[in-house]
């Protein structure tokens, strides 16, 4: 640990701690903003702000660390916030967490910029024409009560992102009290199809993957190092996988049409024709020759020649992969976004799971997951079916009152949904928001939320590792803006409108949370411990570790019903596949207004602050396009204009535009930067699950004649080292890894 002497975990009573969290000694720019101002000693100019009351661990100039949970994505990494003089300065990983073990990705670290963002909503806002008018909380609550009066449960819809823990419980209770079942849990980017396929093949939605045990990882478009499921955890396992055992370094093969961060780290990156991942999986099963029975029967047709023709992967390469998979065991085969994003995504995923089973990986590198023994706290997994259903309801004008929390559907819904127009049809729209994002701007009432670093909460990660855990989220400093509220507090306030008696014991969400945790003290491993002690320990650790319940794992992937369509014919009018790129730092765009993330170059293209259209140089040459050309990308649904970046890591038949940018709201750091590919996304659905098939949009591109300088970190030499040894590389037959420490 850094600074271990000054790392003092919170020890006192939580109410003391709230005192401590008061901002102290920060007077404008005076403390930090020094640098190079006055150059001589001054007397009596500045005021030194001191404590009124102080605890033992409250020492000015000494950083104190508090544990909490990262809320930037759903992976559930535990964080360790450095607090000084009442200000949270930096987020670091909590070493005690089995998920991130003291590490934290860039997205997670930018959490402080979510908290300190200058564009946060600070007051409850009520629509008045085109403007938001600041109102009091009492008025806001009253207004909601008024609007809900006499509205039946059927006419209420609550759209939210994935929620878990006590907030999920409370939200459920609130919706029950309203008598509605219309809770739409929506995540724009979620492995929903893979979950369904896994459930079919293994009996669980998300098994535990053991990269560290695998000798070969064959990933069909799963960007597990960048944005897939639990990247920080997977990255750590990846490091072990690369180190291997006895110098036998793990081999990563990535199959996808557009290179992801994981693909960029692969030993072999295979650019397949979009949508043919499943075909390749079957082809490999065929080449392995290990399958029997109906599987063998199924793959018989997938001989190398055909597979090579359909996928564009050479037969030699298929042989090599098959040989490697045979030689090095266990291996791990993954299906990710690229495989599931088609109308036949389930089939792709099933074929890939079949390969896993043929290789005998189930039980070795694919293990049974654990979960918390509180099913009501298990995360509700968001998907796009929910959005579709809600959109249908909105279009039909079914809803009188609509709530929106932790989702930005106006921004992330495919253009073909015309969600914005449909949303307008709802009677009264309430948005719980940190910023005035696109959806909040459409709402009639915006309720400002506390940032994740100000709020209380519990969070249960979907993807658990060793044992189960419940993560505690707690304030790292006092409210930055006096009039924001925690989501839990708001829900409690709302639920009290309905069930005042039941909840009158809970003064606030904190009390509710404390009560709920202490109620289950025994199950949480605190049997026989004093309430206060247990609670304080829990807060100190920031994690409640549990044995958890293990779901058993099956291996019944079967060939039954597995039909893979032939590679899609090129559409004459829209010849190119549009692949929405998901980047590690921007994800679905909810954090685009964090300047560190905007300025952190995209790892592959090194572009900052803008969107781009990735085109293979060959294709670009064909179309007469060079880097920086502004092109118009047109689909059946719509069109956007963006700069071109020539990128060899993409299939020539596809182009890619990253998602996350292109906001026309959300404050100074997000608004007006880049374009939003969701806008031109067609409404094509996955056949088996009804999920939105994100990769199925076909587009054409045309030059606009404009050209810009692409804003990127890469210099004029591009990705070349000009013969100088800058980034060294060596192939495995020339290196002896066993000599390393």
């Amino acid at each position, binding site marked *: 640990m850094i600074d271990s002497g000054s790392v003092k975990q919170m020890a006192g009573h939580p109410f003391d701690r709230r005192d401590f969290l008061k901002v102290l000694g920060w007077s404008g720019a005076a403390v930090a903003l020094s640098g*190079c101002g006055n*150059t001589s000693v001054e007397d009596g100019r500045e005021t030194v702000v001191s404590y009124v009351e102080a605890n033992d661990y409250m020492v000015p100039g000494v950083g104190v660390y508090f544990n909490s949970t990262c809320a930037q994505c759903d992976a559930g990494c535990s964080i360790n916030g450095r607090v000084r003089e009442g200000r949270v300065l930096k987020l670091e990983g909590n070493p005690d967490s089995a998920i991130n073990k003291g590490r934290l990705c860039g997205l997670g670290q930018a959490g402080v910029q979510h908290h300190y963002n200058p564009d946060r909503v600070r007051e409850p806002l009520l629509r008045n024409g085109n403007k938001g008018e600041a109102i009091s909380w009492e008025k806001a609550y009253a207004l909601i009560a008024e609007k809900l009066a006499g509205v039946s449960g059927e006419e209420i819809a609550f759209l939210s992102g994935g929620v878990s823990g006590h907030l999920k419980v409370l939200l459920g209770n609130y919706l029950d009290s309203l008598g509605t079942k219309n809770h739409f849990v929506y995540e724009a980017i979620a492995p929903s199809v893979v979950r369904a396929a896994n459930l079919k093949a293994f009996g669980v939605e998300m098994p535990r993957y053991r990269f560290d045990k695998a000798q070969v990882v064959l990933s069909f478009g799963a960007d597990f190092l960048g944005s897939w499921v639990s990247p920080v955890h997977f990255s750590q396992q990846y490091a072990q996988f690369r180190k291997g055992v006895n110098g036998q370094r793990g081999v990563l093969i990535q199959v996808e049409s557009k290179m992801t961060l994981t693909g960029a780290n692969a030993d072999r990156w295979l650019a397949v024709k979009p949508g043919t991942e499943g075909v390749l999986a079957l082809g490999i099963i065929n080449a392995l020759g290990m399958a029997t029975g109906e599987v063998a029967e199924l793959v018989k047709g997938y001989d190398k020649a055909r597979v090579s023709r359909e996928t564009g992967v050479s037969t030699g390469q298929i042989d090599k992969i098959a040989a490697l998979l045979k030689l090095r065991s266990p291996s791990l085969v993954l299906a990710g976004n690229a495989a599931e994003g088609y109308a036949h995504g389930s089939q792709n995923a099933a074929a890939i799971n079949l390969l896993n089973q043929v290789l005998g990986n189930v039980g070795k590198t694919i293990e049974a997951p654990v979960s918390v023994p509180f099913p009501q706290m298990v995360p509700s997994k968001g998907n796009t079916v929910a959005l579709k259903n809600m959109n249908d309801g909105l279009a039909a004008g079914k809803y009188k009152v609509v709530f929106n929390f932790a989702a930005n559907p106006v921004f992330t819904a495919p253009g073909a949904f015309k969600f914005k127009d449909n949303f307008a049809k709802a009677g009264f729209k309430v948005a719980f928001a940190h910023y005035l994002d696109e959806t909040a701007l459409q709402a009639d009432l915006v309720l400002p939320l506390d940032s994740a670093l100000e709020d209380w909460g519990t969070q249960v990660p979907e993807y658990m590792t060793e044992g189960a855990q419940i993560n505690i989220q707690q304030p790292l400093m006092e409210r930055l803006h006096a009039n924001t509220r925690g989501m839990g507090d708001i829900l409690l306030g709302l639920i009290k409108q309905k069930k005042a008696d039941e909840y009158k014991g809970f003064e606030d969400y904190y009390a509710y949370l404390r009560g709920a945790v202490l109620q289950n003290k025994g199950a949480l491993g605190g049997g026989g411990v004093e309430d206060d002690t247990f609670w304080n320990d829990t807060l100190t650790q920031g994690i409640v570790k549990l044995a958890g319940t293990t779901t058993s794992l099956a291996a019944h992937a079967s060939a039954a019903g597995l039909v893979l369509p032939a590679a899609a014919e090129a559409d004459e009018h829209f010849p190119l596949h549009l692949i929405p790129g998901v980047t590690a730092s921007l994800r679905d765009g909810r954090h685009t207004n964090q300047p560190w993330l905007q300025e952190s170059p995209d790892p592959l293209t090194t572009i900052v602050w803008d969107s781009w259209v990735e085109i293979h140089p060959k294709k670009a040459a064909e179309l007469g396009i060079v880097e920086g050309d502004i092109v118009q990308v047109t689909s059946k649904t719509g069109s956007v204009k963006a700069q071109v970046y020539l990128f060899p890591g993409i299939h020539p038949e596809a182009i890619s535009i990253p998602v996350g940018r292109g906001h026309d709201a959300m404050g100074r750091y997000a608004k007006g930067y880049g374009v939003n590919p969701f806008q031109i996304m067609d409404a094509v659905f996955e056949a088996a699950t009804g999920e939105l098939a994100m990769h199925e949009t076909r587009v054409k591109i045309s030059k606009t004649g404009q050209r810009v*300088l692409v804003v990127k970190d*890469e*210099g*004029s*030499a591009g990705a*070349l*080292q*000009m*013969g*100088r040894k*800058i980034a060294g590389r060596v192939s495995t037959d020339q290196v002896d890894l066993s000599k390393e420490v």
Partner: protein
Amino acid sequence: MKDIREDIAWAKINQDVMKSLENPRKLYWVILFLALAAFGFGVGCEIYQYRTGMGVENVNNPQVWGLYIATFIFWIGMSHSGTLLSAILHLMHADWRKPIYRFAEAMTTFSLMTAGLFVMVHIGRLWQFYYSLPYPNDRGIWPNFQSPLLWDAMAIFTYLSSSVLFLFVGMIPDLAIARDNMQPGWRQKLYTLLALGWEGTDRQWRNFRVTYLTIACFLIPLAVSVHSIVASDFAMSQQPGWHVTSFPPYFVAGALYSGCAAIITLFIILRYVFRFETYMTLPILKKIVRLTFAIAMVWTYLNAVEFAAVWYSHDEASKAVLIQKMTGTYAPFWWGMIFCGSVVPLVFAFKRFQTNIPVLFAVSLLLNLGMWLERWMIVAPTFSHGYYPWTWDHEQWPSLVAWGMVFASFGWFTLLFMIFCKVFPSVSMYEVKEMVYHRTLHLKKSENAEQGAH
């Protein structure tokens, strides 16, 4: 044709030069106004830059130096020919220098002042400039004497102060003349003060001769050292394209070259503006032109040597920079430099152009442009194409502020120079008298010899 007519009356010399102090042609005022306008623009740019930050120069993190440093070297270089004319030719007893060395010497002084200005303009924290001065202070720290920039500062300070003193000492007899001939007023008071009571006594002349010679002797190695130290700013560094052994002589040659070209330009301007046709004669101009031609060829040779050395060596990074100069973004400027620096001076090889004033004026401006481009081509390409390919940047282009400042420096220089020429005699009266006197003696001697032969 003669360098100067022997039959000019000494009184007329006084009269002509004194007239230049009072009554120049109208063009003088036009030039002064333009110079002032240009300088004023630069002042505006500097205020903006000072307040906003160096970013307005549009330089960036690999390309941390831009036009300012290039122009700095240009002005330093310009200063060298003054010394060439006043000191080297003095030691060589080339008496044709006498009518023109004064303004050349002034050019040295003012171009050094302009160069000094660029040091200020370039620095990111001008308000902390005093950190770079070696003086005992309450922090107890000193500047870094290892830095070529500090050598630069010391060398320029030495050169500037020595040049000013040299200019002043050489001007004392003329100041006495001006004192004696000026109408009473502030100028006469100024001349009286500066002439230090000079009366031309034998003791004064005796010491004057030795002093002048001694300082001239000091100035020559000093001038060479100054520009080799400026060259060290680059040659001492590790960067490809800069770390070149031949840089010091190359810089000195370039300095003399640009200085000579500037002398031709100013010669032509002064000759017209101050009606100095009798003194700044075409034969003298012809001599300067020939000198310039010789230096141009030396410069061309050193250029070729540098390229050949880089080309022939195994230093791939330097080679890459050279190729980039020739073919990359900077190619037009680089080839422009070669054209202006090595091809244009070939005009001087033709006798009929050697005294053709319009041609010479145009050519001298082109040469100056070429030499400015040379400095830019030394600074910029290495930054854009250094050791580390990731940071290569071929897109950088100086901003309007940077160009404005460069433009303004010419205004500032012209302003100082023109004011000097109006306030102080820009032709050395006593030395022109000497020149006339010696040539008369010589003429008499040869006439006598001729008569004797009869």
